[in-house]
């Protein structure tokens, strides 16, 4: 995964310096092509963070190495420096002080601010479709069972996210039909074979 380095030209992906980040039509200094932009000046969370630091730490706690008036809330996992909530650069990789964060980011050794997970709903859907395709080879039942297993996990995932479960319900209905069809198909074959023997 490519590391993100801040705003860039949406056409050529050349990094845009602060001077180029402005509202209106911007002409990229690299590719000389225009694009329309709206720039923002996001507020620093300083006030909020300082109050959080004050609320979280007991009196007499260590001072932050960068802000001596702020109480330290943790220490950098890389260099051990005491840091306040303002300096804590935690993007899911543990607390880092700003300088360690910059170094790791420059070395591309910092995990991106992203969440990775398995999409069980997709896995259930694919298992169900595979079961439909291979049902004539008696593979419908194992694929349907796998589909139901993934659907169960998918249900939990969707519940956590608060998303609609209609798609999964349809998958479960089809998987159950596959199992019933598979059992019926085996029963028909057994009955047929027994008749042939007689």
């Amino acid at each position: 995964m490519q590391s993100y380095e801040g705003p860039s030209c949406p056409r050529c992906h050349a990094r845009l310096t602060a001077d180029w980040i402005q509202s209106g039509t911007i002409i990229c200094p690299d590719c000389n092509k225009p694009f329309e932009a709206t720039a923002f000046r996001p507020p620093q969370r300083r006030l909020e963070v300082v109050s959080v630091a004050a609320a979280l730490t007991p009196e007499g706690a260590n001072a932050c190495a960068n802000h001596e008036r702020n109480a330290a809330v943790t220490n950098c996992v890389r260099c051990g420096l005491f840091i306040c909530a303002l300096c804590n650069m935690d993007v899911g990789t543990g607390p880092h002080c700003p300088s360690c964060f910059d170094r790791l980011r420059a070395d591309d050794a910092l995990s991106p601010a992203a969440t990775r997970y398995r999409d069980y709903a997709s896995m259930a859907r694919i298992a169900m479709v595979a079961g439909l395709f291979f049902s004539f080879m008696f593979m419908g039942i194992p694929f349907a069972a796998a589909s139901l297993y993934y659907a169960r996990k998918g249900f939990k995932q969707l519940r956590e996210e608060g998303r609609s479960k209609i798609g999964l319900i349809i998958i479960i209905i089809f998987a159950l039909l596959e199992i019933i069809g598979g059992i019926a198909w085996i029963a028909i074959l057994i009955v047929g074979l027994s008749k042939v023997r007689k």
Partner: protein
Amino acid sequence: MTPGKRKLLGRNVGAMSREAVFETADAIESESREGYEVTRKRVLFEEVLLVTIHREVGVVYVTMTAILTVIFAGVAILSRSAPAVAISFGILALPFFIACVVRLILRLDYVSIFGRRSKAVMRFSVRKRRAREVYGRICSRALEVQRAIVERQTEEASPISEAPPPLPPEDLANDASGAAGST
């Protein structure tokens, strides 16, 4: 996992990537898929630095469809002596030709959102008005959230209270006045 409702804003489907971009209460969420693995990135409205919109053709797409059109059309022309083969290849060339022409006429609208730590990109091939709407919506949401934070910070920074300090309890006040009278 992000609990709560989210609304699909757009997609960014390319030859190598497949992303869906959603709007949540406090951020733009971008979900990219690699097989069964889903990677979810968030661009918080309070961290949005730049939102851009631009239109481009997509040179790779146009080149690929043009090459395929030329190949199939070329085979169709070369095999004129066998009409069935020529017609088959002509029919094969047609969708690529249409895709190439449609792309050249309509082009692609890209909406990109750059945050402090991540970015999200959407592209709209046909719905140009929708691209504008999404661009405007993201800008207004980001502005709204960032303005609310600034307002909250200024409120917190302002003096806590302009009210006069509380008076001492009555018995203490009486004692003090008694002592003043006796002297």
